């Protein structure tokens, strides 16, 4: 590994914190998207149809 000097821990923790947070956000965004899609599919199966093309208020 690269030698990052006596304060290497600070560097690693910083980058790790950013990486973990960004990864967490991305995972949440993808999971949330899937949930919304599955909710929409469930509603469509129940027979609730969108009124025309104005499905969003």
């Amino acid at each position, binding site marked *: 590994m*690269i*030698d*990052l*000097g*006596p*304060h*290497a821990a*600070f*560097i690693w*923790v*910083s*980058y790790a*914190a*950013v990486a973990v*947070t*960004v990864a967490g*956000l*991305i995972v949440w*965004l*993808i999971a*949330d*998207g899937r949930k*919304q*899609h599955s*909710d*929409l599919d469930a*509603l469509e199966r*129940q027979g*609730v149809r*969108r*009124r025309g*093309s104005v*499905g*969003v*208020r």
Partner: protein
Amino acid sequence: MPHMQTLTQRLANPTRFMELSARLLPWISAASAILLAYGLYLAFIDSPADYQQGETVRIMYIHVPCAWLSMMVYGVIAVSSFGLLVFRHPLADVSAKAAAPLGAAFTFLALLTGSLWGKPMWGTYWVWDARLTSVLILFFLYLGLIALRSALEDEGAAAKLTAILALVGVTILPIIKFSVDWWNTLHQPSTDFTSTVDPSMRLPLLVMAAAFTLLFFAMHLKAMRNEILRRRVKALRTQAVAGRDRLAAHATTQGAAE
């Protein structure tokens, strides 16, 4: 200018937005990932250590992008809020709502990385210098936006009230920055730790900043898509309940008539 107008007009329709964002998202994500990889390479392998700070200067390559994002995203929220209140753009609230938690996250990361950057340099995990203090107050502004929105049940009112708060915040922000700088010079001699950035460090910084910006736009688009879908679900559920209520009412009146 007219080109930008037609772009926002084209995107105003949520369905069009969903189509366009679906096509854009993979490209923006890929570009962000590539720049991120290049930036990390530059940050760790192709740039020197600082003669004063040693290797810890490399924290700057994620701290500054996070700090930059914390301000840029507030700008996005402010522009969206303006778009809602003045132009009643249909997607303005979706944009503002989606951006707030992302902005708050990056602001928090700016504070965290700033703290970790400072500890080896000054010996403490927190310093009340002008920059960190300003970012801390910005964090409070984000929290205020998120808290206000979650406290309001009426979505329409929540949209407009958070927009007003965002515009109040963005108006006061320069004054806050000015007052914090003033306060800082009163109490401390200038200890600006990034007063000059060596040219050899500018490229990694720019690349990382660009990478983070693209990363935010990708996440923002995705979050907006999720929010649009969420609102569709809610609208359909309301429709379904209303339909069932109408049927039930019809059935009981029929039963009573017989």
